[in-house]
């Protein structure tokens, strides 16, 4: 019996990247993806969607990915939910900083769409 799909909440303000990520994860299989263009939408959608993992862009309008992480951790249901950042800003100190703030890992842009699904599954397995 196939295992339940991984519910993934993806927050990204670039519509093209949203579409590519959706196609990548569909191709990989095993994901139930919900996408939002900003942090406010993500905070509204999350309680009903109950994601298993969240994938945040860093530079979001109005509220950054880091601020979204802090906000979502305030919601009791998501205090421990794995958060992965997807960002072009991934110097070692930036990566360390995100992990210290509670992210499980960082995926560097540009990402490989063929490997994205496996990459996320690998991070979840290791966390």
């Amino acid at each position, binding site marked *: 019996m196939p295992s339940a799909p991984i519910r993934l909440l993806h927050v990204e303000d670039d519509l*093209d990247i949203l579409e590519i990520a959706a196609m990548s994860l569909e191709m990989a299989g095993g994901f139930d993806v919900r996408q939002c263009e900003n942090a406010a939408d993500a905070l509204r959608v999350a309680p009903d969607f109950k994601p298993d993992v969240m994938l945040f862009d860093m530079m979001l309008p109005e509220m950054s990915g880091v601020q979204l992480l802090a906000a979502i951790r305030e919601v009791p249901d998501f205090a421990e939910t794995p958060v992965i950042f997807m960002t*072009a*800003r991934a*110097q*070692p100190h930036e990566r360390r900083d995100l992990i210290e703030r509670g992210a499980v890992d960082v995926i560097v842009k*540009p990402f*490989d*769409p063929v490997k994205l699904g496996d990459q996320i599954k690998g991070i979840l397995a290791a966390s």
Partner: protein
Amino acid sequence: MRDPILSSRLALRSISTGAAAMLIWQTQPFMHLNATSASIFALTASLGLLMCLPPRQSLAPVGGGTTRSSRDTIALDLHALVVRTDLQGKIRQVNDHFLALTGYQREEIIGRPVSVLHHPKDVAPHAEASHALATGDSWTGENRIVGRDGIILWTRATALSDTDADGRPCGTLLVHSDISRTKESLAAHNATASLNRLTEPVFMVSTTNYELTFANDAAAALFNWNREDMSVIRVGSLPLECDRPAVSRQIESLLAHEIGSFAFEALYKGVPYRADVQLIEHTDIRPRLYVVLRDQVAVKAAGRAKDELVATVSHELRTPLTSIKGALGLIRSGVAGELTDKIRDLLDIAYRNADRLVLIVNDILDLEKLAAGQMDYDMERQDLIQTLKEAIAANEAFATRFGVTIRLIAEDDSAFVCYDADRIHQVMTNLISNACKFSPTGTDIEVRVDSDEEKLHVSVTDKGIGIPADALETIFDRFTQVGKASRSRQGGTGLGLSIVKGIVESHGGTVDLSSIEGQGTTVTITLHRAPAEKPAAMLSANRGLH
């Protein structure tokens, strides 16, 4: 009606004795001066307006003379430096003003070649003067007189052939007006105009009494200086908080030419400044200390703005590249349907070039970080051989594409160095991919590790086209690539070796390159072995690493 035309000729009598010189004028047919004009000419000459003459004023041979008033002569003698030479160019007469300004004693300069007064950089004016005199002309222009103890005087000079009382040539007459002050003023004026445009405070200080000699607008505004009377301003009394004894020592070293410049930190009204000090010894002006103050708060703000720009550019370029690469990658994977070979070939080209753009963006950002000292390093004591193996494995597919084989030759199974594995991986990838791109198909690339007690030498050798000797000097410069025409085929950015050098040097190591055109290239990076214990000590030894 025009008076009989006069030619003029200056001759000085009795100047060697310091007595009043006499001006002798002669009538000649082609100088458009009447008797009154001649008198004016004498005065203007004595007032230093000889410079108004055209550079090469024709003069006829001198015949009998007319003695002018002794007042003219006195005026000229007080104003100008006068030298007479014999036909061999030896000094036979000088006036007192010459002695006063050059510091020579009469007895030590008489009989010496006039060339002892010449400045080595005045070859052109002296050649012009010699030519003019040889063709019967006079010469007027600017030159320098080198006085006793190296004193340099800028002068406006006139040289004319001299004749004796019988009209026979007897040497050269040289009349010089001292224009050093004018030169200084002009230099200061030019400097003022450009320095006033600077937003940074700049001032100049005399090296003899530390009197302020110049302040630009920004400095005058900052220190509330009245530039109408700068001589009363002593820079030493500025309320700058700094290590004064240390600054004094540095100034002494500067004046002794032990150092070329120095900088010190100072606080003024609570604002931190960096003061850069240089000694200016331009020949046109007297030596001065040139001080530039830089507001460190503003410098740091500018640094932050640059960081932000780099981060923004990074983000703004990578975001569309993510979409381009993502879309192409998905199509290539077949998710959008079956592809014909032709479409796949075209997609491969697009994908490869999107990759290349990503590399260029990454390389430029890396270089910016290296230049700003902001490259981030995760330094750990680890096995370099392991990282080399990983780098070789990561580049094997690339090597296969070029039909070459990478071989690792290491005496030891492990070699511990304190380094950032990602960055050294990046260095090796750069070196190996370079070697692949320029190697003939079927050849080997050798990655060799040699070691001694203190250091490890990792060399990457190819049997490729090599680098011409004249290109070796610039090979580590940005955007340098041998054979630029081949860049698109080889796919490099020309930034790789600059990055390699920057990263390796940040690790306290060195990069050496040797190459023989047509035979191949070896790039060797040398890193210090990590101590067997206390890796933390090694970490702290790597200055400037985060």
